[in-house]
C-alpha cells in the first residue's frame, strides 16, 4: 500500500524550491499570494530566485541542500517545485529520504519533477502530486480548475476528473495505482534506481517539444522494457509542440501511440488534461484510481 502524506490544514507551510531550472522570484509571486489566500504559509527556498548565472537555479550542492532542508524541516508540510527544466537527475541519488520516510509530505510538480515522483514511488511507496507548478498561477491561471485541483488535492478532496472521448480511445474500465509523468524522463530512468514498475497500474504520460520520431522511439523503449504490456490502463495526456524532421515522420503523436498500444486490450484514453499546457489536473501518483473510458466520456476517479 502506498503511504499517504497528511493532507494540509489552514496554517500549514508549503516550501517552494527549484530543484532543476532557474526561476526568477517575481514569476512565483502570484503562486505565493494564492497559496497564502488558500490559507497556507509559504517558505521560499534559496533556489527560488537567487543569483545563479546559468540554466540551473543553483549548483547541484545548492539545489540539493535546499530540497534537503525542506524535506527535513518539521514545520514544512508540502514542497512545491517552482518549475521543472532539467536538473533532478543530477541530485536524486544524493537526496537523503530518511526523514521523509518517517514524516512524508506532499511533493508537488511535473515535467522534470517526474524524477522525484518515480524515485519516491519506486523506493518509498509514498504518494506524490503531479500537478501545475508556480508559473501556472500566472496570467489568471490561479482561477483555473487545473490550479484549483491542486488546492483540492492538498485539502484531501478525492479527485474526480472528466474529459471528452477521443476517436482513438479504447473503451473499458481499469482499477489500479496511478503512476506516470513526463515520457522523456520515464524513459530516461529505465534501468536506474528510479525506474517505476507499472504492472497492474494505470499509467499516464505527457510530453512537450519532442520530435515525433523520438516519441515513437521512447514508446518503443517502454514497450521493449515491459512497461506497457501489463498495465491496467493507459492515460495519454498532451503531446504538445511536437517537432518533425525534414523528411516528415508521416504520423502524429497520437497515431504513433495508437499503433504502439494496438495489441493491448486495456482501456486507453487520449487527450486527458495532463500536459505542459494549462490543461493539467493534479494527479496523486501512487494512489488507487479508477479509469473509465466510455462511449461519451472519460472519467478518472480516486
Amino acid at each position, binding site marked *: 500500500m502506498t503511504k499517504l502524506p497528511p493532507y494540509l490544514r489552514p496554517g500549514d507551510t508549503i516550501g517552494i524550491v527549484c530543484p532543476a*531550472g532557474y526561476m526568477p522570484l517575481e514569476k512565483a509571486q502570484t503562486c505565493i499570494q494564492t497559496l497564502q489566500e488558500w490559507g497556507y504559509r509559504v517558505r521560499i527556498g534559496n533556489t527560488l530566485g537567487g543569483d545563479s*548565472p*546559468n*540554466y*540551473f537555479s543553483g549548483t547541484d550542492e545548492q539545489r540539493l541542500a535546499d530540497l534537503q532542508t525542506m524535506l527535513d524541516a518539521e514545520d514544512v508540510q508540502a514542497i512545491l517545485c517552482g518549475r521543472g527544466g*532539467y536538473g533532478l*537527475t*543530477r541530485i536524486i*541519488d544524493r537526496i537523503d529520504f530518511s526523514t521523509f520516510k518517517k514524516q512524508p509530505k506532499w511533493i508537488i510538480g511535473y515535467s522534470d519533477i517526474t524524477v522525484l515522483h518515480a524515485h519516491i514511488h519506486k523506493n518509498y511507496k509514498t504518494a506524490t502530486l503531479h500537478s501545475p507548478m508556480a508559473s501556472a498561477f500566472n496570467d489568471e491561471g490561479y482561477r483555473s480548475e487545473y490550479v484549483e485541483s491542486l488546492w483540492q488535492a492538498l485539502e484531501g478532496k478525492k479527485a474526480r476528473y472528466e474529459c471528452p472521448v477521443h476517436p482513438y480511445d479504447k473503451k473499458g474500465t481499469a482499477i489500479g495505482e496511478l503512476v506516470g509523468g513526463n515520457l522523456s524522463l520515464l*524513459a*530516461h*530512468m*529505465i*534501468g*536506474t*534506481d*528510479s*525506474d517505476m514498475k507499472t504492472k497492474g497500474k494505470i499509467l499516464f504520460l505527457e510530453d512537450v517539444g519532442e520530435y515525433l*520520431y523520438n516519441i*515513437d*522511439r*521512447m514508446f*518503443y*523503449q517502454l514497450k*521493449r*522494457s*515491459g*512497461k506497457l504490456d501489463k498495465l491496467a490502463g493507459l492515460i495519454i495526456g498532451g503531446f504538445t509542440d511536437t517537432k518533425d*524532421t525534414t*523528411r*516528415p*515522420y*508521416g*504520423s502524429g503523436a497520437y497515431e504513433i501511440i495508437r499503433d504502439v498500444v494496438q495489441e493491448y486490450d486495456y482501456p486507453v484514453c487520449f487527450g486527458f488534461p495532463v500536459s505542459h499546457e494549462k490543461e493539467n489536473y493534479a494527479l496523486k501518483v501512487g494512489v488507487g484510481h479508477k479509469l473509465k473510458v466510455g462511449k461519451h466520456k472519460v472519467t478518472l476517479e480516486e
Partner: protein
Amino acid sequence: MNRKYFLSSILGIGTTVSTLGVSRRKALPELSGASSELPLITPAYLQAGDTIGITCPAGAITLKEIEPAMQLIQSWGFRIKVGETVGKKDFTFGGTDAERAADMQQMMDDPSLKAILCARGGYGSVHIIDRLDLAGLTRHPKWVIGFSDITVILCHLHRNLNMAAIHSKMCNSFPDDWSKAEPIQAESILSIRQALAGEKMQYSIPRDDKNRTGIGEGPLVGGNLKTIETLSGTRSDIDTTGKILFVEDTGEYLYSIDRMFWNLERTGKLSGLKGLVVGGFKTKPDDPGDDFGRTLYDIVLDRVKGYTYPVCFGFPVGHQKNNFALKNGMSHRLTVDGQKATLEEIM
C-alpha cells in the same frame, strides 16, 4: 578544429572465437544470454569476389543515392546485392516495418552474403529488431555495418550473440565523385575496406588537454549515445563492464547530453569500464537565457571523476567527415598518454 590523424593497420588473421570478460551486472532483464558470457563470434573477413548486401533497416534511400557507394565497393573487388528496401519509402522509413524486417531477415539468412551494409541511419531499427530471427546469422555469421540508428542492431548483436560488427559510415556518406573526396572523408571510407579485409584497426589522435591518461583493454562497444540510452531496459541493452565504451551524438542540447551521461552512470554503464572514448558531439546551441554553463568536457569528466580508467576526447567517430570504422565487440587497447591517444585492436 583541424586535427590530424594518422592511421595504420596491421594485417590480421581470419575468424577467431574466444571467450572474453566476465559479467558482473545483474540488472539486465530476461535475456537469452549476456554478451560477455557468450563466446565472441567474429564473422569471416572478406575476400575478393565476396558479396555485400545493402539494406535499409531505418530511413529511406534511393538506388541512385547508393550508386557511388556501390561503385566504390565494387572497385574494391566485392559484389553487391541490393536489398528490396532500397528505393522503398514509407514516409521517413525505407519501406514498412514488415518490408524492412523481411529484407534484413533475408540478408541475415543468406549464406552467400559475407556482410550487410546498412544504407543509412535515420530512425527505424528499433521497429524491426525484435522481429528478427538471429538463427540464420548465427549459422552464417556476417559483418553488419552502420552507425547512428544502426547502433540498435550493433548493440543487439553484441548483447544477444556477442557477434562483432562494424561501426562506420554508410552509403549516404560516400561522395558522389570519389576523385573529389576530401582526404579525411576518403580515409574514413577506406577504413571500412580495411576492417572488412581483416586488418587490425589502429587509430591515433593527438593529445587533448582534457584527456585522462592510462591504458585499458577490453571489448570495444558503443555507438550513438541517445540510441544507447533508449535501449536501456530492453533486450538490446548492453553490459559495458570490463569494456571500452565509445559514444558520439549530434544535434542534442548540452543539457540533454548531460542527462544521457547521467543515464549511463545510473544504469551502471560507467562504473566498470576499462576506458571511455568520446567521439564527435555536435551540440545544439542553448536557447537564449538557458545557458547550460558547462562544456562537453565538464559533463564527461564530472561523470567519470570517481573512476580511474583512461578517457580520450575528440576521437574521429561520429556524424562527421572523420568517422573511422570501428570493430564493435572486438578486443581493443586504449592508450592515452601525454602525446596522443591510441585505440588499437588486439588479439
